[in-house]
């Protein structure tokens, strides 16, 4: 697959993100805390890249910087495709509880404003089918769905705008193992069928192994190691990677 897809979709150069501690006019001095430190990497078309790290390592911050949700950063983020979309960890917080599934699915195209209502609806139902949900789900509220169903709806919503790059931030961590496996398969299938690039963020080394071609290991805002998953797992060079593999009981 590497020959066909040499085209780079995302290139990050020397990215540092900042977090403001205490905002205020009076007394509270603004403190800038650096979260990501001088990060560089790239993602090619059709590639699944894993981002591995523990809590507080800056994974989510990095994702939010790439998608443009937060803008407090220095360095370069070059995108050679449409705006990447994102799936979040908590399937209970990522769907608007006040809106029906259909409304949520239609919203991205409604905001774009250049498709007819009928067309939008048609596409929403197509997308529901693609993520393996029944049509009747469309009329439900998020509170009436299971965790796995919600995560599928989130994936459908993210794909409504046909992004070339999808950022999945711990999309299976909050789910039961059997559901986890289903969602992973779904993502892999979408990757295959749509030639979708995925930046897959997780703390679970095994899931990363299953999903990804390449992985980045992140610690305290820095990428400590990067490489093909198979080589990375069999021949870790950085001590932290070794420690992670050992803690997860994968020693080869």
């Amino acid at each position, binding site marked *: 697959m590497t020959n066909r897809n040499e085209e780079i979709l995302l290139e990050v150069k020397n990215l540092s993100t900042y977090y403001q501690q205490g*905002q*205020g*006019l009076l007394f509270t001095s603004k403190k800038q805390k650096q979260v990501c430190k001088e990060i560089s990497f790239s993602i090619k078309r059709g590639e699944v890249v894993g981002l591995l790290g523990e809590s507080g390592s800056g994974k989510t911050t990095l994702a*939010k910087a790439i*998608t*443009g*949700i937060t803008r407090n950063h220095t360095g370069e983020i070059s995108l050679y495709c449409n*705006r990447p*979309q*994102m799936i*979040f*960890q*908590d399937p209970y*917080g*990522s*769907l*608007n*509880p*006040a*809106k029906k599934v259909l409304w949520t699915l239609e*919203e*991205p195209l409604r*905001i*774009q404003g250049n498709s007819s209502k009928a067309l939008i609806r048609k596409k929403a139902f197509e997308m529901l089918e693609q993520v393996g949900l029944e049509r009747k789900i469309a009329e439900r509220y998020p509170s009436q769905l299971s965790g796995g169903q919600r995560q599928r709806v*989130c994936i459908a*919503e*993210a794909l*409504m*705008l046909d992004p070339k790059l999808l950022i999945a931030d711990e999309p299976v961590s909050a789910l039961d193992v059997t559901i986890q496996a289903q969602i992973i398969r779904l993502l892999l299938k979408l990757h295959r069928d749509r030639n979708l690039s995925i930046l897959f963020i997780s703390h679970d080394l095994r899931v990363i192994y299953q999903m990804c071609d390449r992985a980045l290991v992140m610690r305290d805002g820095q990428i400590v190691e990067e490489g093909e998953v198979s080589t990375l797992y069999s021949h870790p060079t950085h001590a932290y990677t070794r420690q992670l593999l050992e803690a997860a009981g994968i020693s080869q």
Partner: protein
Amino acid sequence: MGKLTARLEEWKKKPFLLRIGLIMTGISIFFIFVGIFVTPYDPEAMDASSKLAGISFKHIMGCDNFGRDVFSRVLKGSATTLFIATGTIGIGITGGILIGAFAGYFGGVLDELLMRINDAALAFPSVLLALVLISLFGTGKYQIILSMGIAFIPSFARIVRGEFIRYREMDYVQQAKLIGAGSFRIMFVHILPNTFRVLVSSILIGFNNAVLAEAGLSFLGIGVQPPDASLGRMLSEAQAYLFSRPGYALCVGGTLIFIILGFSFSGEGIGRKV
């Protein structure tokens, strides 16, 4: 028929307090509404022969010191009170949503500035703030609405702001940003509907407070001016005849409590549904 039983089932599922509250509020609003068109007597008509008459079939709440029928005046007064409360809440909630939404959603310097003003205003009890504003705007029905409305904005703004701060970091709001929704769309289409339950509850509690505040101001004589009747004003008149005709004060006060209880039960019931 089936539809009716279904409705009844749904009604029975609602919390007990909410049901009681809605019934009480319904009764109050029904009487007040009818009172706008028909009252047993002309609320202004004085009758020297029945000055301070007691409770009887002719005058179910008796008569006041000018011989006016208290029941008719209570109907009229409740209507004024409710009208003022509605106006007050209208102004308060509109201002509160605008200020709270902007401050909560955008945060930062705007939030700091708006909330500092808000806190300074909130530091005053709303009745006191309304008093100050009345001394600026003068007395009269509409001035009262304006004064109380402004005085109620800070508390609503604070509630709305809290809700917006809670929701702005939610993943679905981040998601909305990603699909290209503008700030206004996110604020009023994505976030606002989620605050409705809290808003409805605080509106009902606000009604309760507005009725109390209006009655308090009118009681002090700086609220509604004659010839408009108001429950608070009637209570202050009734206080003078407390010994000779305690029924007068009790009837007026009872009505006031009934109306307030309706709102507070409903607000409480809705809050408890969560």
